[in-house]
């Protein structure tokens, strides 16, 4: 009944240029006029809901919202929109490398206080050895351009001593350079990085993966002649100074010269290396996609000409997702013991892939993007077994502004959390900590929604042809380190939040 009245109310006021809050009030008065106890009860209920909705919108000065997670330290990252954090243990220091999206309409090139110059967003390098007092070391500018058209959003790190042909004294940072190139820098001295090499001539880039023990890199690229914006270019970067192209890879229909429908573009791969011999590719964002499981050996050593047959050759399985969801992160967790199946003669342990969709639209303007768990034990027949989303009503998240829904998970496979806890960036719902020990029944055990600051950028929706903007946290990506610290970065320029678990969530990880 209430939902029905809500629909009528929306229709009645759709074309009037009345602010949303006033429309709700008008509707509320409409209900009051009906009179009677039921109506009064409804109104009380609605007032409580409205009060929650109003209080849910963040204000500068409000404390963070948290459960079983605690803020340890922050860095404002020079108020740059942040994408991927990667934390690296470098000698006796811990260094966070953070990729940035391009600038905003209001501030295309924020000023770097260390140089006094306006610089296009690129890569922030922050010493987080003392997580309570992060020290900003360096900003390396990226490609000129706003939002996803500029910046240097992705970053991966390998030590030279791990790479087969690397300089043993070097630490290599692989980063994207906007949409046009991939770059490798030597960051052995993180305050003074040195460019090593560049792979250019692309029409797009995105979420790369780099195997440090082999040097094989799966670079998400837009090769100019391919029909898709994002596919995979595989390089041997075992000697970062001498990149060697191995092959191009994508879904049949994306290759040069193909006709007909073009399958959804790649978001990012994760490899289990020569030992696991699998590469998991996530395609799509929020409008359909695939989990593709690929035989790594066949991919690297099979026929390389991009024909439909050759592209299909290394594929083990391709699981289509609903047209309402896509895959940002596909995180493999092979061989997970399932307590409930412990006494079963078969299937005691399962190979699991966690699939994280990416929300795109502000204020719930799309189907819910969330987290899915697929059992891929029988690889050719992967099956969804469970899912997780933040309950919208728990924070009136559709009202808060900005995106609400999942975006990405941590990708560290360090023992401290691997196969026990997963951390999901959920935009205006902050970081969510999931107990995934039973992936058939994932369970939220903690969360942290950072406070907004004066730097937090607004997010707008179009209502009746006009922009209506709100300011909300937009936790974009998250990563963990071997010590157990959790690093969340904000898409809306609020910076880096370094967190730790407390209470029951900490116990799940076995941390003291």
């Amino acid at each position, binding site marked *: 009944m209430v939902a029905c009245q809500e629909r009528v109310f929306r229709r009645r006021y*759709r*074309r009037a240029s009345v602010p949303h809050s006033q429309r709700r009030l008008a509707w509320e008065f409409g209900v009051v006029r009906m009179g009677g106890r039921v109506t009064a009860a409804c109104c009380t209920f609605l007032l409580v809901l409205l009060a929650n909705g109003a209080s849910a919108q963040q204000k500068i000065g409000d404390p963070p919202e948290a459960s079983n997670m605690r803020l340890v330290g922050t860095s404002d990252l020079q108020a740059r929109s942040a994408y991927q954090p990667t934390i690296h243990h470098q000698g006796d220091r811990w260094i966070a490398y953070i990729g940035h999206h391009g600038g905003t309409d209001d501030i295309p090139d924020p000023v770097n206080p260390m140089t006094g110059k306006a610089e296009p967003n690129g890569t922030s390098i922050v010493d987080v050895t003392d997580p309570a007092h992060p020290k900003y070391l360096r900003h390396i500018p990226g490609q000129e*351009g*706003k*939002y*996803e*058209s500029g910046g240097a959003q992705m970053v991966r790190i390998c030590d030279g001593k791990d790479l087969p042909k690397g300089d043993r004294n070097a630490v290599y940072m692989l980063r994207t350079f906007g949409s046009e190139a991939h770059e490798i820098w030597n960051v052995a001295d993180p305050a003074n990085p040195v460019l090593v090499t560049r792979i250019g001539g692309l*029409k797009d880039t995105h979420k790369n993966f780099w195997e440090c023990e082999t040097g094989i890199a799966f670079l998400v690229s837009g090769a100019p002649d391919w*029909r*898709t*914006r994002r596919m995979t270019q595989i390089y041997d970067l075992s000697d970062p100074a001498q990149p060697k192209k191995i092959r191009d890879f994508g879904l049949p229909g994306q290759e040069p010269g193909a*006709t*007909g*429908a*073009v399958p959804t573009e790649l978001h990012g791969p994760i490899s289990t290396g020569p030992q696991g011999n699998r590469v998991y590719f996530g395609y799509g964002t*929020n*409008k*359909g996609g695939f989990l593709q499981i690929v035989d790594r050996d066949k991919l690297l050593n099979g026929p390389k000409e991009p024909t439909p047959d050759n592209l299909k050759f290394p594929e083990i399985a391709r699981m289509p997702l609903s*047209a*309402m969801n896509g895959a940002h992160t596909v995180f493999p967790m092979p061989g997970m013991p399932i307590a409930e199946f412990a006494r079963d003669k078969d299937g005691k342990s399962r190979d699991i892939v966690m699939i994280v969709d990416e929300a*795109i*639209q502000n204020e719930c*303007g*799309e*189907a819910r993007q969330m987290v899915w768990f697929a059992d891929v034990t029988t690889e050719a027949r992967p099956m969804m077994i469970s899912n997780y989303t933040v309950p919208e009503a728990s924070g009136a998240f559709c009202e808060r502004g900005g995106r609400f829904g999942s975006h990405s998970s941590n990708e560290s496979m360090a023992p401290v959390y691997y196969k026990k806890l997963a951390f999901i960036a959920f935009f205006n719902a902050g970081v969510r900590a999931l107990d995934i020990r039973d992936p058939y029944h994932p369970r939220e055990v903690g969360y942290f929604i950072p406070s907004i600051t004066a730097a937090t950028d607004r997010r707008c*929706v*179009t*209502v*009746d*042809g006009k922009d209506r903007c709100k300011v909300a946290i937009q936790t974009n990506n998250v990563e963990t380190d071997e010590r157990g610290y959790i690093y969340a970065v904000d898409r809306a320029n609020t910076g880096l939040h370094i967190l730790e678990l407390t209470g029951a969530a900490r116990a799940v990880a076995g941390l003291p």
Partner: protein
Amino acid sequence: MTRSWPVIAAMFLTLGGLSAVAGYEMASPPAAQWREIAWPFPRDGWPAGRAFHCGVAECGAEVEVYLRPKLGFCNCDSGVADDDEVDRVSDVDMISPRFAPLKVGDVVDVAEMRGRIRAYDVGMPKEKRTAIGIALSHRCDLMAVAAQGGGDAARVQRATLTFLESQEIRKWMIAAMEGR
């Protein structure tokens, strides 16, 4: 009274006739040729749009046009970059997953939106048909248009563009892109 009856009747007939002529002259000819039909495709990632049909008598061939906003296209600055983009986003794949471009596409402006237009051969089970794909960008959003017809590509394209430029459709597209 009986003598004035024919005069009154004649006046009514005259006024009625004049009203009919005026109504006919004021009607918008292009819009009248097109009939809105139900969205003919199964649910996908984007909400259904609007579909229209034009018969042989009015358009010279059977033509159907499908159009819908895709809010959240993301290419906020670059817009519709190239013909590959039209292949991917214009919804021609809903008509048939097997389509081949007839030639390089062109830049097009419709309803104050810039984009690209491209013609295709569509592999249908029983006949060869022509499809037109149009992708128009507006800030970070996209209007996707697909059309199909039995005539040659130039005729289907002409009929489609004429239809898109009709006042009613222009108005609807602008409103749809503004979230109304």
